[in-house]
């Protein structure tokens, strides 16, 4: 650490001043002269055929400038990746409550609303299905009968996903090693349990918005707060039928949170606003209300999982068989990818002799599911880390000791055949979190609580691994440009987005470290398809690794250019130039950076460098369920201490200790903030948050009914990092943003069990589940005694039963 000039030292977020002053303008704040307001007509039912759709009456409403449907696009606005099953505006059929059908642009919001009301829409309701198990029955209503003939696009150069689309099965991802059933039969101790997690809402505070402006050449520029400007551009090119050079996507400088949620839904907003702008020849702004956002946008998939894990009597884990069903909802969106990440991580970070994992993505009429921080891993880890706890208990071992005994260590081979050669800090994380939390003492003390005590304390642990970046999903690269800008500062130009996670600060710190120049010499810019290079999507916590490496390389090249220019001024060889911050010297003479820059401007010497960095290539066999899914992994362990009021079922989390191996700490306050923020979302996932679909209707679409943690719900959080540098990470860094929420919910669930002696295998562990062991809304469901008779009820609400 001490060898770094700026990395790992206190630093200010480079874009914080505008945010604290309130001068930062987000997409929802943008306005233009002559701007029209767009509104979307959305499906009022979960599944229906569009019998009649006539928007011409809307055009007669005063103030309405345009009204469009899927007919106004190329190929009925069909888009989607990896499965092309979605539409900018519905074509022939709607598949969830909130599915967009038509769009109106008008002078005012009131006129736009009146326009929507004037649209003639006739729907013929179709049978719908609200749980994954029912959706897989042969007689289930089909959401995508047209996809029964498998159709998909290859993802990058992997053989990814031959989408099965048999019935409502959208995908099936596997991991295989040996014969787990035979191995389980030979185990001394086996646990066999079902777990479930609910749909989770991203709840980014800025709702979706897009401002589309027609350009004089017949093209369109879209200002938007998305996660991937080049994907937005690609979808616009496809559905609008315009060449790429006529479609420009400019990221708004400030984005009010994303967490995986500002992808597919916001691509649709872009497509709707852009078409209206092209039709009207005027700027068009589309903003969703909170209710509209929560109803129409995609969620974290709900999942039901079945774990069988076996061990020897001495506590050595031997084998597992995992099956899980992800509720994809109406469209595939990212579910094929989240299911793949779920499959890879389903066994947890342990050694196994034999295993089989099957994760199924299933279409239903419950909204739709897509990317959300953690991307499949929190869904399976909520189950696996409780299962491991249950297995430890059956083996008569302390759960933390049991994890230490079985966790993957440097040099181990993962069940799917990948040998881990570097940067494996899991054991160190577990040992450190044990010390920090005073685990052994509290574990023993709380086990001695009198049986009749009403407020009961417990302490639980969960550990995990999380593959860095996209892995074998596809090509994984980024290109950054650092160029001289106004005021003698250098602009870092990236196609990666900072929606609050702090990547632009990380890039500036890395540029300062690599160039030896002060941090203040660097400024950031927002993504722009006309200026930035395509860096791939801002997902999978890949910015630091990919963008950080590209920044480091570009900054090193920039430094060499500066040294070369200094050598011309100093009349010496470049090799003789010594740098001390902004001062460059040779032979007793020195020049300041500003002199060099002015000289370079006069002499037209370029001070601009770019660099591309690509992840090492790996291969995963999707048909064999073996290979190398990710080049490297983040590791971590969290301990939660809780107090459960057994009279009310209320769980108060008293403290969480989190220790994560992130390779290298670049931006300490930022990294810490990522962990605490992830823990807040994980706490919500474990205790509070559940999108309540009833017969496909989202019944809690605002913050009065969908509760996310407040300041008062949060415990004190202690964060520490293990630095286990990754050889090809920028200065050894891996990643932090996405993984931090993965172990929180199961750590809390394990602590609740320690406090009460009763397992809550179904998240969120809300009052009735903790108090009664079942849901009040559906008393038939039995969650106790290892049997979940109708786990599917937990997936889709009380729904179709």
């Amino acid at each position, binding site marked *: 650490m001490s060898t770094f000039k700026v990395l790992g030292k206190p630093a200010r977020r480079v874009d*914080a001043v505008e945010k*604290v002053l309130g001068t930062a303008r987000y997409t929802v704040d943008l306005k233009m002269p002559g701007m029209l307001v767009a509104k979307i007509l959305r499906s009022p039912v979960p599944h229906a055929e569009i019998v009649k759709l006539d928007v011409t009456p809307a055009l007669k409403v005063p103030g309405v400038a345009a009204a469009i449907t899927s007919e106004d696009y190329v190929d009925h606005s069909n888009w989607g990746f990896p499965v092309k099953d979605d539409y900018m505006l519905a074509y022939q059929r709607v598949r969830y409550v909130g599915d967009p059908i038509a769009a109106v642009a008008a002078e005012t919001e009131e006129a736009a609303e009146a326009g929507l009301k004037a649209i003639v829409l006739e729907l013929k309701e179709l049978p719908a299905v609200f749980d994954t198990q029912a959706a897989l029955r042969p007689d289930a209503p089909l959401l995508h009968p047209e996809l029964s003939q498998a159709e998909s696009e290859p993802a990058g150069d992997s053989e990814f996903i031959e989408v099965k689309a048999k019935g409502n099965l959208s995908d099936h991802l596997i991991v295989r090693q040996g014969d787990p059933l035979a191995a389980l039969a030979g185990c001394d101790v086996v646990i066999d349990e079902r777990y479930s997690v609910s749909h989770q809402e991203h*709840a980014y*505070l*800025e709702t979706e918005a897009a401002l589309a402006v027609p350009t004089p050449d017949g093209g369109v520029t879209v200002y938007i707060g998305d996660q991937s400007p080049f994907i937005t551009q690609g979808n616009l090119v496809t559905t609008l039928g315009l060449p790429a050079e006529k479609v420009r996507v400019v990221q708004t400088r400030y984005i009010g949170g994303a967490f995986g949620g500002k992808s597919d839904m916001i691509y649709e907003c872009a497509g709707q606003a852009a078409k209206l702008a092209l039709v009207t020849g005027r700027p068009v702004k589309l903003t969703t209300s*909170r209710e509209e956002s929560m109803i129409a946008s995609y969620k974290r998939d709900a999942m039901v999982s079945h774990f069988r894990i076996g061990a020897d009597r001495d506590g050595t884990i031997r084998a597992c068989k995992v099956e899980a069903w992800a509720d994809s909802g109406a469209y595939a969106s990212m579910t094929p990818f989240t299911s793949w990440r779920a499959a890879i991580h389903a066994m947890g970070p342990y050694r196994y002799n034999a295993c089989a994992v099957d994760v199924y993505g299933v279409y239903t009429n419950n909204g739709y599911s897509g990317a959300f921080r953690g991307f499949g891993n929190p869904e399976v880890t909520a189950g696996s880390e409780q299962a491991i706890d249950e297995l430890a208990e059956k083996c008569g071992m302390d759960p933390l000791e049991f994890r230490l005994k079985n966790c993957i260590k440097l040099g181990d081979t993962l069940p799917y055949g990948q040998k881990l050669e570097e940067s494996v800090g899991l054991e160190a994380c577990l040992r450190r979190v044990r010390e920090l939390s005073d685990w052994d003492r509290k574990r023993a003390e709380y086990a001695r609580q009198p049986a009749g005590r009403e407020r009961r304390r417990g302490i639980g642990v969960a550990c995990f691994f999380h593959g860095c970046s996209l892995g074998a999903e596809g090509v994984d690269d980024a290109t950054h440009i650092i160029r001289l800008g106004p005021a003698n500062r250098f602009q870092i130009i990236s196609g990666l987005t900072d929606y*609050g996670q702090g990547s632009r600060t990380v890039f500036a710190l890395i540029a300062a470290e690599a160039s030896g120049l002060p941090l203040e010499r660097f400024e950031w810019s927002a993504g722009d398809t006309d200026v930035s290079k395509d860096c791939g999507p801002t997902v999978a916590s890949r910015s630091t690794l990919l963008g950080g490496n590209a920044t480091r390389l570009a900054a090193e090249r920039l430094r060499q250019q500066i040294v070369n220019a200094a050598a011309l001024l100093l009349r010496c060889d470049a090799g003789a130039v010594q740098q001390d911050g902004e001062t460059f010297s040779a032979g007793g003479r020195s020049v300041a950076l500003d002199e060099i820059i002015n000289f370079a401007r006069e002499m037209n010497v370029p001070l601009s460098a770019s660099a591309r960095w690509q992840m090492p290539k790996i291969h995963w066999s999707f048909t064999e369920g073996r290979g190398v899914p990710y080049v490297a992994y983040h590791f971590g362990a969290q301990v939660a201490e809780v107090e459960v009021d057994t009279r009310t079922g209320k769980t108060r989390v008293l403290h969480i200790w989190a220790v994560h191996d992130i390779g290298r700490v670049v931006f300490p306050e930022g990294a810490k903030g990522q962990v*605490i923020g992830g823990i807040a979302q994980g706490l919500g996932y474990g205790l509070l948050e559940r999108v309540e679909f009833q017969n496909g209707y989202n019944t809690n679409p605002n*913050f009065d009914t969908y509760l996310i943690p407040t300041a008062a719900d949060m415990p004190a*959080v202690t964060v520490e990092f293990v630095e286990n540098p990754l050889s090809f990470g920028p200065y050894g860094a891996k990643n932090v943003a996405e993984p931090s929420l993965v172990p929180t919910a199961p750590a809390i669930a394990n602590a609740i069990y320690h406090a009460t002696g009763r397992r809550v295998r179904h998240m969120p562990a809300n009052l009735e589940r903790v108090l009664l062991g079942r849901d009040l809304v559906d008393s038939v469901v039995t969650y106790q005694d290892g049997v979940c008779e109708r786990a599917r009820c937990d997936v889709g609400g009380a729904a179709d039963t």
Partner: protein
Amino acid sequence: MRIQFTLNGRPTTVDAPADIPLLHLLRDYLELTGTKCGCEIGECGACSVLLDGEVVNSCLVPAPQVEGRDVVTIEGIRGPDGGPSDLQEAFIEAGAVQCGFCTPGMILAATALLAKHPQPSRPQIIEALSGNLCRCTGYQQIVDAIELTVRRRAGKEVQA
């Protein structure tokens, strides 16, 4: 209708419909977009402003109700040099800002708290922030930033 009130210390007159909330008056008629719209039902606190020194959700205040009263928005919170105040500076230093969308509301809630209780306890700070949702930070560094401000104002810690 014509509404006259004091906005960030200045007498202000604006013509606006009577049936809009203060939030829209600020954002759409006065172009003060630092006040954010997050839920429009008074749950998230992104639209917090000070009304006669009390923190309120501006989405729930009918615009005509501010007639003759004193309103402070985030644009009215500044240090002596027009830059960040000590509280705003502490938010930056403590890592209390991520996406920044909740930040104006958080700063106004903290401003109201510190005006009444210059030496609040940590539980008092947490209570004062509990009407403001943040989805990014997990709140801890926001509470830290307010404590840092309290210590500095008491002269116990000098600004770096």
